[in-house]
Each structure stands twice: as structure tokens, then as C-alpha cells.
């Protein structure tokens, strides 16, 4: 009697239990990108509820994997940069002409010694032999066109020293009139409490490099980030993403998508100067409930981000110089939940932008 009356309910329960078991079984495979960029199967039913185009779905991976695998076929890990640079050069050769035309060939650098972004784009590599890489995985120098040499292997995260082919200078707030700040919930915090009222903010919580362009902006613009970048024109673009991707995939997968994002932004805003942020540190004592949110994970990604920034001709900003304590973790008084900077301490962030601007573009 019981069975007959409630057969539907029982069937639904049984089916849902089966689905859940399948999901749990799938989640055993885990979701991670190993360092060769190959991503394994999705993370169970939970991921089924993400947007289909988050870049997390298995069906998108095949295309991306095949491209990447083609590009890297036969090349060992040590020489990955060869592949990337070749692609860059061939693509940018055309861009260089176009950019030159647009800017009228006029340099206009205020600081003569600073290399232009174009220098970087057409840089040749100098093989000085073993430069004694201070940083793992980065083992080369880059020589700018204006003979200003900077050694990316000399980067020292613990000193917040990231050599770049330009000097930072002080600017006042009018510099941000044509600036746009793109990012995740940390950027939303800057929008609300940073006092940067003349700048535009395209920030939304839960943003990642995979979904940022499609995200509806929560900071004063109605539309998606892509809409905003298509409709308006900006001189400077500040990007801060990374904390939401910590537990999702490996560094290479993340950097790949960041590169795609930057390329798209360059297409939409060819004249803008791009600033890439290092991922901000979190509190040292484990942030609640998730093991992947930790500073060694973040530091690994920051190195790769720096390299990406240098390849793409973007300025690399390390906000951690403002908020770190002596042990390299986010300082306690600046945070409530261990991940975000609280409202009281956002003023220093604003000042950081004022003192870390690149002019002449």
C-alpha cells in the first residue's frame, strides 16, 4: 500500500540517489589541471550547475586541449616559452604596424629611459647563458629596444621586486579619469570604499578569468563587462582576478585563460595600457574551510602572472607590498574574513595606485 501510493516519490528518490552516487564517483577523479595543461574530468554533479561556458565543462576542453596539445607537441616543459614567443611574434608583427599608425609614430614618453610597450613587443631575447635564475621557471632576460635591459629572473616576490621596462611615477587622481578597474569582489571593495570616484569599475563577485567578460557588472554599470569594454573606450585597464580560481585548476590552465582574456581586451581596447595585479595574499592562519586558499598557491600563480604580464606588455602591480605583514601573509588588522581587505584599510590601496602609475602612453 505504501509503495503504491507513493511510487513516484520513491522513484524520484531512487533516481536522485543514483545520480548523486554517480556524481560522487565522478568527483573521485577530482578536478585539476596537471602541469602539462591537460585537464581531467569534471567534479561531479555540483559542477553541473555551473554555467555551461565557464570553461569548466568537459565539452569545452576538447577544443582547447587540441589546440594546446598541437602547439606543445613534442616540446618538453623546459622550452615551453619558445612556443609561446613564436606565436606572439607572428601575431604582433601586424599589430605593430597598426599601432604605429594610430599613435602617429610619436613616442611622447616623459621618461626617456623607460622602454615603450612596443619595445617589449618586439623584444629579442638575449641568451646570456646561465643567469642564475633567482626564480624558478623564469630563466631569461629580456632586452628592450631602447637598450634598457631588465632581468625577469631577478624578480623577488618577497621583496615585492618585479623588474619591468618602465618606471613608476606619481600621479594625481585625474589619471584615473579614463581608467577602468575590472575584477572580483576585492575590486568591489575598492569601488565602495576606495574613494576613486572618477574611475569606472567593472567588478562583480565570484568573477574568474573564465567568466569575467560575461559577468553582469555590480559596480554602477548595467551590462556585462564585455558590453562595457565594447561601448566605451579607456586609456588604462586594471585587472585583478585570481582568488576565485585557486581551487579550480592548475597554474598553466589559469595563465592560458588569462592570456586569452588579455588578448580579447586588447582587441576591444587596442590603445589601452593594461595593468595586471598579482593575486593578493590571504591571512596566514588557514582561511576557513578551504585548503586551496593559501599563500603558497597564490605565490606560485603570481610568478606565472608576472611572466604573462611581461610577455603581453602589461604593467605588473603587486598590491601585497601594501598589505603584507612581515611573514608575507595578509596582515590581521586589514582583514575581517582573512581574504578581503576591510573598509578602513582601503585608502592605502588608492594611494598605491597613485604611486604606481606608468605614464607616457
Amino acid at each position, binding site marked *: *500500500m*505504501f509503495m503504491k*501510493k*507513493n511510487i*513516484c*516519490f520513491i522513484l*524520484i528518490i531512487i533516481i*536522485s*540517489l543514483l545520480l*548523486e*552516487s554517480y*556524481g*560522487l564517483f565522478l568527483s573521485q577523479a577530482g578536478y585539476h589541471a596537471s602541469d602539462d595543461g591537460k585537464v581531467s574530468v569534471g567534479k*561531479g*554533479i*555540483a559542477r553541473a*550547475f*555551473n554555467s555551461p561556458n565557464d570553461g569548466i565543462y568537459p565539452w569545452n576542453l576538447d577544443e582547447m586541449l587540441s589546440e594546446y596539445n598541437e602547439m606543445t607537441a613534442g616540446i618538453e616543459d623546459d622550452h615551453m616559452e619558445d612556443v609561446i614567443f613564436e606565436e606572439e611574434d607572428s601575431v604582433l608583427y601586424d599589430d605593430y604596424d597598426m599601432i604605429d599608425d594610430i599613435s602617429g609614430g610619436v613616442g611622447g614618453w616623459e621618461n626617456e629611459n623607460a622602454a615603450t610597450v612596443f619595445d617589449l613587443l618586439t623584444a629579442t631575447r638575449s641568451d646570456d647563458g646561465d643567469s642564475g635564475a633567482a626564480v624558478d621557471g623564469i630563466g631569461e632576460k629580456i632586452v628592450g629596444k631602447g637598450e634598457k635591459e631588465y632581468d625577469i629572473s631577478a624578480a623577488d616576490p618577497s621583496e615585492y621586486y618585479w623588474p619591468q621596462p618602465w618606471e613608476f611615477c606619481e600621479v594625481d587622481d585625474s589619471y584615473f579619469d579614463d581608467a577602468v578597474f575590472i575584477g*572580483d*569582489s*576585492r575590486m*568591489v*571593495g575598492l*569601488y*565602495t*570604499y576606495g574613494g576613486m570616484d572618477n574611475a569606472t569599475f567593472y567588478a562583480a*563577485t*565570484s568573477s574568474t578569468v573564465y567568466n569575467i567578460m560575461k559577468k553582469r557588472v*555590480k*559596480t554602477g554599470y548595467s551590462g556585462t563587462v564585455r558590453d562595457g569594454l565594447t561601448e566605451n573606450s579607456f586609456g588604462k585597464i586594471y585587472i585583478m582576478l585570481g*582568488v*576565485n*580560481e*585557486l*581551487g*579550480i585548476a592548475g597554474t598553466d590552465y589559469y595563465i592560458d585563460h588569462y592570456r586569452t582574456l588579455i588578448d580579447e581586451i586588447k582587441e576591444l581596447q587596442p590603445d589601452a595600457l593594461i595593468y595586471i595585479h598579482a593575486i593578493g595574499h590571504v591571512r596566514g592562519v588557514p*582561511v*576557513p*574551510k*578551504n585548503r*586551496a*586558499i593559501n599563500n603558497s598557491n597564490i605565490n606560485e600563480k603570481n610568478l606565472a602572472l608576472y611572466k604573462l604580464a611581461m610577455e603581453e606588455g602589461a604593467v605588473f602591480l603587486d598590491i601585497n607590498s601594501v598589505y603584507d605583514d612581515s611573514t608575507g601573509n595578509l596582515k590581521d588588522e586589514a582583514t*575581517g*574574513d582573512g*581574504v*578581503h581587505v*576591510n*573598509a*578602513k584599510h*582601503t*585608502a592605502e590601496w588608492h594611494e598605491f595606485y597613485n604611486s604606481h602609475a606608468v605614464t607616457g602612453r
Partner: protein
Amino acid sequence: MVFSGFDFLFGFLPVFLFFYLLIPGQKTWTVQIKNLCLLVFSLFFYAYGEPVYVWLMVASISVNYLLSLGMSGMGKTVKKSETVKRKICLVISCIFNLFILVFFKYAPFVVENINLLTDTLKAADIISLPHLKVPVLENPVGISFYTFQILSYIIDIYKRRYPAERNFLNVATYIAMFPQLIAGPIVKFPEVKKKLGKRHVTALAFDRGVKYFIIGLAAKVVLANRVGNLMYDIDRIGSDSISTGLAWMGAAAYSFQIYFDFYGYSLMAVGLGKMLGFRFPENFRDPYAARSMTEFWRRWHITLGRWFREYVYIPLGGNRNGKIKTVRNIFLVWLLTGIWHGAGWNFILWGMMLFVILITEKLFTGSFLSKHKIISYIYMFILIPCSWVFFFTDNTEEMTIWFTRMFGLISVDEMKHISTSDVIVYGKPYIPVLITAIIFCIPRVRKYVFVLLRKKIVGTVMCVILFFLSVFYLASGLENPFLYFRF
């Protein structure tokens, strides 16, 4: 193990029900096997979260069982030796139970304060005493609940309300039953005594039980956890940087969170009880529709209020020995209620503050409130969030910050890092959940939900949808930013 976790929902519960429902319950000896099954699984349930403290609970049950036997005997024997024996058993039992409760839950707090006192004395050059040290032990889950349940059993036996249960299995099952073990209603022994002897799970009862369980799960996961995220966000900004509007939103969000969380959990316990063949008492009766604090505390955490009334207030004389003694009794009850809720000065302050409000109502404002409906609703609307502020802030600094923000007493200096648009940036996403929460606080709506679930088709469909919604939220971690990186 929590009821709203996948290991319980899809692991423990199906396996347990499979075995439990197979065992028939009509004959007295088969019921014993059913009880044994329930006990074993309940111990596993507890041990899953507390592999060491489960033995503490077993020890507590055993000791109290033996002492209860020492007190048994319903007859009106007036033999002096017997009376003395009963008294001794009662005293030992109370001391034992309160000792383990104090030791595991309150010792660090007590010792910390003793050390503070020692320090002050040393600083004032009165006397120099060494610091006390206490090992920092983890607080065993549910100890407040099962200890109180045991105490109610022991005290009832001493008062000769019923004879001590001779069957150890029944006593153990009564106390350790997993639905009401962790945070469940404090059940009195007569409420389950008959069922322990013989019970039969009817299909209807099981069906109702499942539906109650699902409603409770949805209340917890879909409402409570989500609305509670606003407090995470306020934490993120820093509570001293919130505007008045956001402060009120936050306090309201916390009020809803604590209500739906606790109510949901109690509903899940009641539902599970039904599935097992028991009838547990209800713990909440639309508290946010109350018109005075007195009424509120008759509708909130009913089983706790009932415990304090029966075992503290009435034995002390209740309200029968004149106004002063009544006030003293109420004071003691609220002091103990505050302490029961947690080991911290903020809880004691909370209890005392409630005492002041209740006494005021009893002596002065009570009749006024009962005559003026709208004023009483406004009064409660302001009072409830404010009372919860005492509950969730654990130091005076935080408390002051919250109250100054809520009542707009902010200095010009502090205004600098408060953004007036934070209600929109941080509060707007929560408006739908807050509205839903308010709607489900209305008694008529809540009762209608229960009417709906009795209907064959509509009830089932509604529960299935709620269940899937809850599982979805649990799986995708939407209710918890730290779980799936929703920064």
C-alpha cells in the same frame, strides 16, 4: 555529522532506515531489537563527529542509569534510610552531570576569569596567587542537550513522577537517539516511554516525517545559510565600517538566520522522530509573531523554557512567594539560561538584558502591549534584532560598534570610512532572501505550508522541489563563500 550534510542525507540515513524499518515493532521483544539498532546507529552518528567523547556520553548514561535505579520505587515508603538513599543518589547524580558539563564546556572560561582576578589582585598588591592552568579541551557536541535530558529524567524519578526504567537499553536509546541528540528538542521521558515499549511506523507517519524533514532542511539550507551570508559580507567590510541601514539589515539577517537554522533543525528532528515512530515535542511556535518578549520566550526554544520552568523556577517557588521572590526566581532562571547558551560574558549579559526586559514587561508594560497590537509589533521589531546583537558579538567593543551603527551614533571621524551606498552594493542581493524569510515568519503562511504538505500531490511535489533545491545549494556551496570560492 550534521543533518544537512551529504554524508548524513545519502549515506547514514538510507542505510539506517533500511535496517531499522525491516525490524518489526509490534512485539515487545522485536521492539528491543529495533531499539538496539537505533542505539547502535546513534552511537555511530555521534562517534562520527566525536570519536573520543562518545565514551563520555556512554559513561554518563551508565552512571545515571545506576543512580536512577538507586532511587526507584514508586511506593510511598517513608522509611528514613530509603529517603536518605534517594537524596544521596540525586545529589551525586546532579553533581556528576553538572561537573562534566562545567568541566568540558565552561572550565576554560571560568579559569580565564579566575586568572584575570588573580592578576588584578596581584596588580593591586593585595595578594600574589599563581595562574591556574586548564587543558584546552574541545567542547563535546550536544553535551548541554543530553545532560539536561538526563537531569530531567533523574529529577522526575526523585519526585516520583514515574518509576525508573529498569531496561538499560530503553534508557540509553531515550538519551542517545540521534534525532534529538545534537540540538534537538529536550525530550522528557514520558513522551517516548510508551513508544520505547512498542511502536509501529505507519506509512502515513513515515510520509509525514519525510516531509517535515525536507521542510526543515530547506529552512536551514535555502533560507538560513543564505541569509547568513550577509554577516560574512559585513565581516569582510569590517563591522565598524557599515552604515546604519546595513547594520539593521545585518541584525535582521542574523535574526532570521538563527531562527530558521534552529527551527529547521528542530523540524528535521521531529521529522526523523516520526520516521522512527516517535512523537517529539515542538520547539518553536512562530516566535517572530510574538507581541512581547514574554510571549516570545514561550514560543522560542520551547523545550528549554519548559525545562527551566519545571526544574528551576517551580522548585524555587515560582511566583507563589511574593513579588521579591518571584523576581529573584526569574533572575536565576535567566542567568542560567544565558550561561547555558555559551561560555562567555556576552551570553550572561544577554541573559541579564532579557531578564530586565521581561521584568519590565511583567510589572509595567505587559498589559499595555497586549492591548495595542501595532505598537507591540514595532516594539518587538526593534527589540529582537537588538537582543541578538548581544548574542553574536563576543566582546564589548564589538557590541558598542554595532549599537552605535544601528542607532546612528557615529562620530564624524568614523564616517570617513563608511560608505552610504553599502546598503545597495552589499545589501541589495539579499533583499529577495530577506523578503522570503519575512514571509515565512508570518504564522498563517507557515501553517499553510504544513497544510499543503498534507495534500497528496501538491505536498509531494512541493517537498521534492524543496529537496532538490536544498541539495543544489549544498552541493554548489552557494550558501558558503569559503567552500567554493565565491569571493
